[in-house]
């Protein structure tokens, strides 16, 4: 029963699109309600399943899913020519990411209530995007994984190019082409893994049992890792994200930064590092050097920007850098920290972009120098933004602090010179993060109120609901981190066991 419900997660959004297809675009209220209802149903289902994964921990699983301790495991032959299967399952990590996605999709549907343009198509595209993201997180078969991974970039392009603002054509193209470039690297290595694995299987579970040849790993790992890292905007492939985010409509920014950018980091962990642990040990201590741009320079660039979305984009770049710091630490604490950061950053950046979108809807500008004092006119939205900011700068009580401190402590356990240097720099750059966040909040929300903003209104119930739910998620993780750490540890244990089992010592220092 639960297995069916689990498989329904990605089917429901698709079904909603089909159900809505015959309804005329003029009945936009009905359409929107249907989409909101479907998003809510998925959200409830995912929350229930997450709870079940937590409750089931420690109990034995299906034998086929054993090495990864996967729940709700489904394995059906799919494309016989490729020997591809439909393989899905849940462990703590991907279940929590699914929950994150469900929350962000739900919030995204609600914030785009009044989007301009063809609403029918827009909401259908959101649901398609949701399907693809759910699919990526659920699948344990590389072909299935890649199919969903590709689907997402196309939906993203259509939504930015048709519904975006500013340089939307440029932003959309930049985003999609860069992601496609990353995908090409991934595709090449996927074939490599299939043939070098020698067991005629695309299943991650099966492939994890074999050791891929070392000379293959040595070239395939960096290629695949960077391919995935493109979508997590690791330097030097981060350039798509500021332009992409700023051109995208609110919901797409939320989904892109909140969910889609985690897919890259998830792929790095789940596919690249898990299947090629030996090469990971050799390469990752050097990859860390790239993070100096993300983590140390990213916040400085954000200081110099005036556009809210650019600021948030660079903030995302620096926060995602921390995910890679956690991954590159190659310690259980570091990996847990990286996973925590994926989830935590999803919620906080979702909140960031949601409030920015709401404010933009009212002020019609995203330039912080033109704004001022709007806290007095919209206290609720202002407080939402400030909370997102505090969560972003790692204030205890919110999830950001838990994730960051776990990453710092985990990364410091790694005794390679480069990792140490980057960890120390990352810890010291918490100040820079505070600078751009406070500067933005102060310029936008505080100070005297310009005449033209006298008639602004605070958020309506729908908008308040979105903010409250996202803040509640941030607080929940921040106040009871033990629970989420426990769920994550179950799924990190097999990954770390595989890394620890490889006999290669960590180099790079």
């Amino acid at each position, binding site marked *: 029963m639960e297995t069916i419900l689990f498989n329904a997660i990605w089917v429901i959004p698709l079904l909603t699109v089909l159900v809505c297809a015959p309804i005329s675009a003029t009945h936009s209220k009905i359409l929107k309600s249907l989409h909101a209802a479907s998003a809510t149903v998925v959200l409830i289902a995912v929350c229930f399943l997450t709870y079940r994964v937590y409750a089931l921990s420690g109990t034995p699983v299906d034998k086929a899913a054993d090495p990864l301790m996967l729940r709700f495991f489904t394995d059906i032959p799919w494309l016989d020519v490729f020997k591809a299967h439909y393989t899905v399952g849940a462990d703590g990590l991907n279940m929590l990411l699914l929950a994150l996605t469900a929350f962000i999709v739900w919030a995204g549907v609600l914030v785009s209530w009044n989007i301009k343009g063809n609403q029918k198509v827009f909401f259908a595209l959101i649901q398609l995007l949701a399907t693809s993201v759910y699919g990526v997180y659920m699948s344990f078969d590389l072909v299935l994984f890649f199919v969903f991974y590709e689907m997402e970039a196309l939906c993203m392009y259509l939504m930015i190019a048709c519904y975006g603002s500013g340089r939307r054509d440029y932003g959309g193209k930049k985003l999609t082409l860069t992601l496609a470039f990353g995908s090409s690297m991934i595709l090449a290595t996927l074939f490599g893994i299939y043939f070098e694995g020698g067991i005629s299987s695309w299943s991650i579970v099966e492939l994890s049992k074999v050791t891929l040849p070392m000379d293959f790993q040595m070239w395939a790992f960096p290629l695949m890792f960077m391919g995935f890292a493109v979508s997590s905007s690791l330097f030097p492939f981060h350039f798509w994200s500021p332009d992409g985010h700023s051109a995208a409509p609110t919901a797409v920014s939320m989904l892109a930064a909140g969910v889609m950018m985690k897919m890259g980091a998830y792929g790095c962990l789940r596919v690249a590092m898990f299947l090629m642990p030996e090469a990971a040990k050799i390469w990752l201590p050097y990859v860390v050097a790239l993070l100096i741009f993300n983590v140390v320079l990213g916040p400085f660039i954000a200081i110099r920007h005036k556009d809210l979305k650019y600021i948030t984009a660079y903030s995302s770049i620096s926060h995602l850098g921390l995910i890679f710091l956690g991954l590159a630490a190659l310690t*259980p604490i570091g990996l847990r920290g990286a996973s925590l950061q994926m989830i935590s950053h999803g919620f906080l950046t979702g909140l960031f972009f949601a409030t920015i979108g709401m404010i933009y809807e009212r002020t019609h500008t995203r330039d912080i120098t033109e704004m001022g004092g709007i806290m007095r006119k919209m206290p609720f939205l202002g407080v939402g933004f400030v909370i997102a900011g505090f969560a972003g700068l790692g204030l205890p009580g919110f999830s950001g602090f838990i994730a960051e401190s776990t990453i710092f402590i985990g990364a410091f356990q790694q005794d390679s010179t480069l990792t140490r240097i980057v960890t*120390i720099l990352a*810890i010291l750059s918490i*100040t820079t993060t505070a600078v751009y966040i406070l500067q933005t909040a*102060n310029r936008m929300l505080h100070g005297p109120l310009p005449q033209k903003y006298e008639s602004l209104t605070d958020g309506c119930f729908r908008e308040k609901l979105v903010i409250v739910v996202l803040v509640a998620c941030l607080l929940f993780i921040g106040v009871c981190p033990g629970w989420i750490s426990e769920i994550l540890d179950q799924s990190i244990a097999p990954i770390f066991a595989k890394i620890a089992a490889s006999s290669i010592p960590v180099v790079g220092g």
Partner: protein
Amino acid sequence: MINDVTLGYLILLLPLFTFVVNGLFLGNKCAKAAAALAVVCNGLAAASAILLATDYFCSDYAPQKAILFEYVFIPFAGELIAKIGMLIDPLSTMMLVVVTFISFMVNIYSIGYMREDRAAGRFFSLLSLFSFSMLGLVVATNLFQMFIFWELVGVSSYLLIGFWYHKPSAVSASKQAFILTRFADSFFLLGIVLVSYVVGSFDFSTINDLSLSAFKATSVNLGICSMSAADALILGSVLIFTGGWGKSAMFPMHIWLPNAMEGPTPVSSIIHSATMVVAGVYLVARLFPFMAACGNTLTLIMWVGAFTMVFAAVIACTQKDIKRILAYSTLSQLGYMMFALGACKMGQVVAVTGWTASTFHIFTHAFFKCSLFLIAGSLIHQVHTNDLDAMGGLRKKMPLTYICTLISILAISGIPPFSGFFSKDEIILAAFQGHHYAVFGLALLTSGLTTFYMFRLFFLAFHGEPRHEGVRAGHVHEDFAMTLPIVILAVPALLSGLLGKGIFEKFFTPGKLHVPQLLKLAHAEWIPYTAVGVAILALLIAWFLYASPKAKIARALDETNRSGLYKVIYHKFYFDEMYYTVVRQFIFGGVARVSRFIQDYIVEGILAFVIWFVHKLGDLVRTAQAGYLPFYLGTLIVGVLIWRFFGQLPL
């Protein structure tokens, strides 16, 4: 009878409850209910704290440590577990009483102070958030918990300084305070990570029990260099102290504290004088055995404290803004506490006089300084300016306030039998016992300066002719809600030294120390007389300059006809400007601009080049496919030739 664990929960959860209820439900709509709730809950918390303290000090258990409760917060790995708990020992019990009591007083005071403010609900909510965070900080059982609440007090301080967010000066002051303390905190966090990595635990009990000799053999790689674990611990202790350095606003990270006076006065009173800023001193006191074990860290602490003490006192002598005078006075007193901790070390021997004196001074200082700030708020509320220019002659209009001010000022000046005398005397004694004669001299000098600037403020505000329209017209009166806490606080300002001395000398020792042998410490009888003599001399000078019949007050208040040195001091040695320049020119204009340049021109430039290259390649291929026959023929010939000479074509 309620047991101690319940009391512990009550102390922590009552302010939290107030924060949540006021913040979410009462808010600005029913500010009166919010105020009532805040006063009641903080009153109950204060009562619980006093009960707990009585229980603790009366039991035989007393100076031992007890953990009332402890929860696992984040399990990292093995022994490395972040916990949230409640540690009870003389130091934390004393702080609990101080924080809850001051918080209670300030909440009562705020009823009067915030009466006309529309956002009073938010104010009471944030004030309770601060109390909760500060209480969590003082009962911390480990470094990680300390850091959590350390950040929370920082953010409540930020929110309260910027409480009037429509005022640009308040907004920028709050930002400055947050970022500067955050800068120090980043080193603190690094220190925590480093020490916990070497030691494998966050617990104060483990860290305070270390002996460095066990860490000599292993080495730690710090990226740029590699050092032995013992040296890494010393570095860690300095980094941790840096956190306290910023939070306690020691030189050169002091500038945020005087600027933080932009916030409402009750906030300055509780956060920026009595409680939060002593967190740095508290941190060092809490980790004292560890700091003492770590080489010369204590010497650094002593000099940082001593320099701040003199530096701030000198500036305070020239300021005219009443709250800034008090802010610099706070800095100077924090310097006293800090250097007293550092002065405990003499060569390889660590004595405890300074530790006792420092914690004692935290206790007495909290009362009289809180009281002084509340008085300042009262005055400002009446005359609507911070400037001493516009005060004067308030003695007759505000008699109760006048008496309480006199008590607090005598206390801070160290005149017996007021509270400050006992604690300050012990601090000066500690410097003498530690053979730190230079610091001893500075402490005596500062004692004189303190008396001078406090009485300068006192005479200029209360004596002489009124210089303000409202005072002359008789619009000035004492507000009941605002005067009550001032009067109540005058009692501990008068008595806490006399009564507390016994308790502090009996119970307050920093715990296990690695002292090779206990020395017989010199107990110089002449020190109290000298200190009091210096204070009285300074008082007479102040009287002569500002209150005697011959004093030229108008001239004394005019800063334009002064010498260059005076102007430099009056402008606080231009430190604000220096910071401004460094931040504007170097950080924003330098590093940030270069980063943005790298992004906008180099990264995007390479990207543009790649795009151009692909386009050109496309053009080339397109030309090749255009159906132009001579091109096909040419390529055929060239191809065949290449094949002939470089390939295997048998021609």
